[in-house]
C-alpha cells in the first residue's frame, strides 16, 4: 500500500482516553470500592537479612474491627515468573528490609494500620550480603535452597551454592585471537544504582476469593492481566480459568507493574476473611520499600582495538544487583546476551551476564530493561576509547556500527529491513552541528567563565525481550450501526496502544476513527490473550493481529455481499462503509446492512453477526544457545541515537541540558502525537536516571530514601530546554513485516540518555564519569578532584 492511500496511519489523532482523563471520570483501582470491601495493611521487615523466630499476632487480633491477621506461615505459596524464588510473604527468614512479614485485614484502613503496629516479631539477625562483591564471595547465601527452585530451564542458569540466580553467556568467535589482533586493549568499569519506576498510581489490588470454589476475581493496577492470571493461578495451585483479572485505567507502569505483585497476597487475605473483597494499596513509602526496582548494575569491559579503531574482541561482565529476588530480573540479565555490547560489530566476544542476589529490595523490568544500564557502559566505553585513540567519537562509532550483512553478538543476521543505525547517528550529529571535539585550550578558556558547554551522543538499540513463542490476539465485532468494537488483551496504561489499534482497524476497514472503539478495562474472562504489555512490542504484534482481524471481517462481509450482488467475493472491494463491485461501483451494500446478517426483501436472512479475530505469533525466534548465547531472540529491533548539548556550572556541578536531539529508525510513525509523547517522556525519564535518581542504602542495607523528598523524579524545571525528535521512515529500511512498516518505540527514548549526557559532560569538563547519577554533588566533587590534580 502506498503512502497516499493511507487515511489514518500517520495522523496525529487525539488519544481515545483523553476526555475521561481530563474530566476526572477515568476510574483507577485506587479509586475503586467494591461492596463488602475490607482493607489490608502490611508489616515490613526492619532487617535486610534475618530469621523470623516467632510472631505474636494476639494483640492485633483483639483490636475491634480486625477481621484477620495473616503471616508467612499461612501465606507460604511461592511465586515467580522465570525464577520461582519468592514467597508471597517472608517465610522463615526475611531477605530485604521492606519485605512483607505480616498483613492485617480490617474494616477500615486506619484500624488495619493500627493493628499492624500491635504485631510483635522476634528476629534473629543474619549476616547481610550488601553488594555484588560480597555476593560473589558467597560466604553468605541469600537463598540457601537455590538449587531446589523451579525455574525456566535452558534459558536461565542458577548456580548451586552461590548467589548467582542466572549466569548467561555469549560466546562468538575467538577472543584470544581477537585480542592478539588488537593494537590496544582498553578496560573500563561502569556502575548504575537501583532506580524506582515511580508510577504516579502506586501498586494496588482488590481480590475477591470465592470461599466455596477456587474462583478468584482481581482488580489490579497491572500491565499484564494474563501474566497475573497465569502466575497467580500457579502460585495458588488452581486452574488459570478460575482467575479473572480486571484491569481498568492504570496510573503508569514502566515495567514495574509488568509481572505479578500484590495480587497473590491479596487473594490469600480475601480467603482469610471468607471471600470478602480486600483492597491493598501501597503508600508511596511502601512503594519504594516493598516493590521492585530497576536493578543496580556493574559492567566491566575489556576491548581490543586496532589502531585505526576497529573492534577486534570484547570480554564483558555485566553483573546485576537484583536484590533479594530475581523473578523478572533474570530476564533483564538475559538481554545482555544479545544486546549487551551495543549496536556494533564485535567479531570475537565473550560476555557474561550474571543476575545476582543481595539483601536489598529486589529488581524487575523497567522501561527498556537492561539497556539503559548496558548502554551507559558501552557508549561511555566507546567514547573513552575514542579519546585514547584520538579518533572522533562519531568516526569510531561509524567504523564499528552494525550494517546489513553483519551479525549481532548473538549471531543474528542484519537485513536491510532490520533498520539503519547509521542513519540515526548521522541525523543526530547533523542536528547537533557536531564538528569534532573541542581542544583542551578551548575548554580551559571556557572554564574560566564558570560555565562550560559540551556536546555528546550515544547509540541505542533494543528488541523485545520475550519468550520465543510470544503471541497475541484481537477480536473485532461490528455493532448494528456499523461501528466496530475491538477487544485486545494488552493494557493501555498511557502509552496509547488503544488509540494506535483503533487507527489500524479504521485504516483496514476504511471507516472514520470515531467508528472504532477499543474496549477498555481488559478482563481476562472476556478479552483475548496477550502475553504481557511490555517490551515495546504491541504496536508490532497487536497491530498485526488487529490488521488480520479487520481483513477477516472485510472478507466475511464480501462473502455475504457476493451472494446478494451475484458475483465472486474477489470482485468486491470496500470503503466508505460499503462493500462494492470494483468496476460497477453502484452494485454495493453498506456495512450496516451486513452487520447482523443480510435480510432480503422477502424476509430471508443470510450471513450473521460480524465477529472476526486476528492473531500474531512471534515469527522465527529461538532460545539462545545455553553455552554461546547464539540464536535469534530479536523479533523487531529499533535503533536510535541521542545527542545532547549541555552546560556545566563548574562551581556548583549543576548540569543544564540545553538540547536533546534524538533519532529513531521507527519505520513508520502511526501517530506522531503519541510517538512524541513516548520520546519526550522517555528522554525525561532518562534525564532522571542520569542526573537525579537512585536508591541509597546504609550499612545495614536499609533503604535511606524511600520518599520523594530524597528520591524524587524530574520536575518541570529539570527538563531540557529543547527536545528535537527525528523519525526515520525510509521504505527501504522500514520493518517489512510490521504494520505499515512500524517498529516499537515505547522504551527506546530512555535508553542511552545518560550515556549521551555523560559523553557531553566529558566534552565540557574533560572528566570521565563511570557512575550514575551525575548529581550536582557528584559532579562538583569530581571537578574538585580534577582541579586538585592540577588538570585545569
Amino acid at each position, binding site marked *: 500500500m502506498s503512502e497516499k492511500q493511507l487515511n489514518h496511519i500517520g495522523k496525529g489523532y487525539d488519544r481515545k482516553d483523553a476526555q475521561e482523563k481530563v474530566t476526572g471520570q477515568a476510574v483507577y483501582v485506587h479509586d475503586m470500592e467494591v461492596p463488602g470491601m475490607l482493607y489490608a495493611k502490611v508489616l515490613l521487615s526492619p532487617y535486610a537479612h534475618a530469621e523470623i523466630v516467632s510472631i505474636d499476632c494476639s494483640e492485633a487480633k483483639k483490636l475491634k474491627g480486625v477481621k484477620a491477621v495473616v503471616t508467612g506461615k499461612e501465606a507460604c505459596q511461592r511465586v515467580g515468573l522465570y525464577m520461582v524464588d519468592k514467597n508471597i510473604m517472608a517465610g522463615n527468614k526475611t531477605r530485604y528490609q521492606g519485605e512483607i512479614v505480616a498483613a492485617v485485614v480490617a474494616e477500615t484502613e486506619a484500624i488495619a494500620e493500627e493493628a499492624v503496629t500491635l504485631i510483635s516479631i522476634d528476629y534473629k539477625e543474619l549476616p547481610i550480603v550488601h553488594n555484588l562483591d560480597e555476593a560473589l564471595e558467597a560466604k553468605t547465601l541469600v537463598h540457601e535452597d537455590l538449587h531446589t527452585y523451579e525455574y525456566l530451564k535452558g534459558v536461565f542458569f542458577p548456580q548451586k551454592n552461590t548467589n548467582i540466580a542466572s549466569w548467561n553467556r555469549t560466546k562468538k568467535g575467538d577472543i584470544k585471537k581477537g585480542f592478539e589482533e588488537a593494537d590496544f586493549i582498553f578496560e573500563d568499569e561502569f556502575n548504575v544504582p537501583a532506580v524506582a519506576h515511580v508510577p*504516579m498510581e502506586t501498586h494496588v489490588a482488590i481480590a475477591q476469593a470465592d470461599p466455596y470454589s477456587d474462583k478468584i476475581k482481581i482488580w489490579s493496577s497491572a500491565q499484564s492481566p494474563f501474566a497475573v492470571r497465569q502466575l497467580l493461578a500457579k502460585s495458588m495451585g488452581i486452574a488459570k480459568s478460575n482467575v479473572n483479572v480486571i484491569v481498568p485505567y492504570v496510573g503508569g507502569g514502566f515495567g514495574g507493574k509488568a509481572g505479578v505483585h500484590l495480587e497473590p497476597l491479596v487473594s490469600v487475605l480475601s480467603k482469610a476473611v471468607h471471600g470478602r473483597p480486600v483492597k491493598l494499596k501501597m503508600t508511596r513509602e511502601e512503594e519504594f520499600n516493598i516493590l521492585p526496582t530497576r536493578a543496580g548494575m556493574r559492567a566491566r569491559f575489556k576491548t581490543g582495538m586496532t589502531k585505526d579503531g576497529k573492534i577486534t574482541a570484547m570480554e564483558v561482565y555485566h553483573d546485576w544487583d537484583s536484590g533479594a529476588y530475581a523473578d523478572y530480573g533474570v530476564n533483564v540479565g538475559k538481554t545482555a546476551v544479545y544486546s549487551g555490547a551495543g549496536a556494533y560489530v564485535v567479531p570475537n566476544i565473550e560476555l557474561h551476564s550474571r543476575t545476582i542476589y543481595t539483601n536489598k529490595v529486589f529488581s524487575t523490568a523497567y522501561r527498556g530493561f537492561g539497556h539503559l544500564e548496558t548502554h551507559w557502559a558501552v557508549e561511555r566505553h566507546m567514547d573513552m576509547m575514542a579519546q585514547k585513540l584520538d579518533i572522533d567519537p562519531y568516526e569510531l562509532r561509524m567504523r564499528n556500527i552494525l550494517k546489513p550483512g553483519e551479525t549481532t553478538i548473538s549471531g543474528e543476521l542484519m537485513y536491510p529491513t532490520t533498520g539503519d543505525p547509521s542513519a540515526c547517528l548521522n541525523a543526530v550529529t547533523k542536528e547537533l552541528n557536531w564538528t569534532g571535539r573541542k581542544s583542551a585550550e578551548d575548554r580551559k578558556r571556557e572554564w574560566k567563565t564558570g560555565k562550560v558547554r559540551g556536546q555528546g551522543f550515544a547509540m541505542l538499540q533494543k528488541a523485545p525481550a520475550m519468550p520465543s513463542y510470544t503471541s497475541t490476539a484481537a477480536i473485532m465485532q461490528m455493532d448494528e450501526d456499523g461501528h466496530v468494537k475491538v477487544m485486545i488483551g494488552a493494557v493501555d496504561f498511557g502509552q496509547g496502544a488503544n488509540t494506535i489499534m483503533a487507527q489500524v482497524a479504521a485504516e483496514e476497514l476504511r471507516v472514520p476513527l470515531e467508528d472504532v472503539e477499543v474496549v477498555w478495562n481488559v478482563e481476562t474472562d472476556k478479552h483475548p490473550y496477550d502475553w504481557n504489555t511490555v517490551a515495546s512490542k504491541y504496536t508490532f504484534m497487536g497491530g498485526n493481529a488487529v490488521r488480520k482481524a479487520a481483513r477477516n471481517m472485510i472478507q466475511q462481509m464480501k462473502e455475504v455481499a457476493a451472494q446478494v450482488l451475484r458475483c465472486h467475493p474477489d470482485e468486491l472491494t470496500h470503503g466508505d462503509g460499503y462493500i462494492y463491485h470494483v468496476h460497477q461501483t453502484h452494485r454495493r451494500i453498506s456495512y450496516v446492512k451486513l452487520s447482523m446478517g443480510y435480510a432480503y426483501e422477502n424476509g430471508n436472512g443470510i450471513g450473521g453477526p460480524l465477529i472476526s479475530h486476528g492473531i500474531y505469533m512471534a515469527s522465527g525466534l529461538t532460545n539462545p544457545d545455553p553455552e554461546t548465547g547464539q540464536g535469534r531472540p530479536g523479533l523487531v529491533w529499533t535503533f536510535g541515537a541521542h545527542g545532547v548539548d549541555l552546560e556545566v556550572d563548574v562551581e556548583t556541578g549543576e548540569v543544564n541540558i540545553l538540547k536533546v536531539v534524538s533519532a529513531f529508525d521507527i519505520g513508520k510513525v502511526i501517530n506522531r502525537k503519541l510517538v512524541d509523547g513516548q520520546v519526550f517522556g522517555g528522554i525525561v525519564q532518562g534525564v532522571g536516571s542520569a542526573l537525579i535518581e537512585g536508591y541509597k542504602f546504609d550499612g545495614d542495607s536499609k533503604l535511606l530514601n524511600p520518599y520523594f523528598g530524597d528520591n524524587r*523524579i524530574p520536575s518541570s524545571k529539570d527538563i531540557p530546554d529543547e527536545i528535537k525528535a527525528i523519525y526515520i521512515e525510509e521504505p527501504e529500511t522500514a520493518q517489512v513485516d510490521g504494520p505499515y512498516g512500524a517498529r516499537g518505540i515505547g522504551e527506546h527514548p530512555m535508553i542511552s540518555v545518560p550515556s549521551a549526557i555523560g559523553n557531553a559532560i566529558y566534552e565540557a569538563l574533560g572528566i570521565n564519569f563511570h557512575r550514575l547519577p551525575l548529581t550536582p554533588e557528584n559532579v562538583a566533587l569530581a571537578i574538585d578532584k580534577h582541579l586538585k590534580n592540577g588538570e585545569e
Partner: protein
Amino acid sequence: MCSTEKVTGKNIEKCIEYTESGLPKITIRFEVNGDQFEKHVDPTMTLLQLLHHELKLFGTKEGCGEGECGACSIIMNGKAVNSCLVLAAEVDGAVLLTVEGLGRGNELSILQQEFIKYDALQCGFCTPGMLMSARSLLDRNPEPDDDEIKEAIEGNFCRCTGYVPIIAAVRSAAKREREELK
C-alpha cells in the same frame, strides 16, 4: 462507626458525634464545584479523604499523601493546594474547585481541550492535579511565559509526558482564554 451522645446544659440540647478513637467530630460547611455541603467529620481527616470518602469524588488522585507530588492538587479559595496536606476542618466556609468542576456545563473548558489537543497526558493519574495547578496559574496570570508555567507545575510530578506537551497545552490555553475575553 460513631457514637452519639446528648449533652444538656443551659436548656440547650445538642448532639456531639464522636469518632472511633473518641475525638469529637466537627461540623464543616463548604462549597465544592458549586454545590453546598455540610459534613460532620473526624478532625484528623484530610481534605483529600473528605473528597474521596465523604463526597465520593475520586477525580482527585493520591500520589504520595505527603504533599510532594501534587497529584491531589485542587483549588481552595482561588489557590491551588495539596489536598492531602489540608485538614477537612480547615475547609469550613471554603469554596473548592476540583477536576470534576472544571468543565463548562457539559462542555470541556479550554484548558481541558488544550490538554487533549497537545496530548498533555498519558496514564492520566497526575492529570487532575496538573489541570488544577494550571487553572490556578491562569487565574492569577493570564499571560504566563514558559518559565512561569514550569514554576506553577513544578510541584506536580508527571512520570509519563516529560512535561513538554503540558507546557505547550497551558501556553495555548492561556492564549485562547485571552482571545475569548477580547
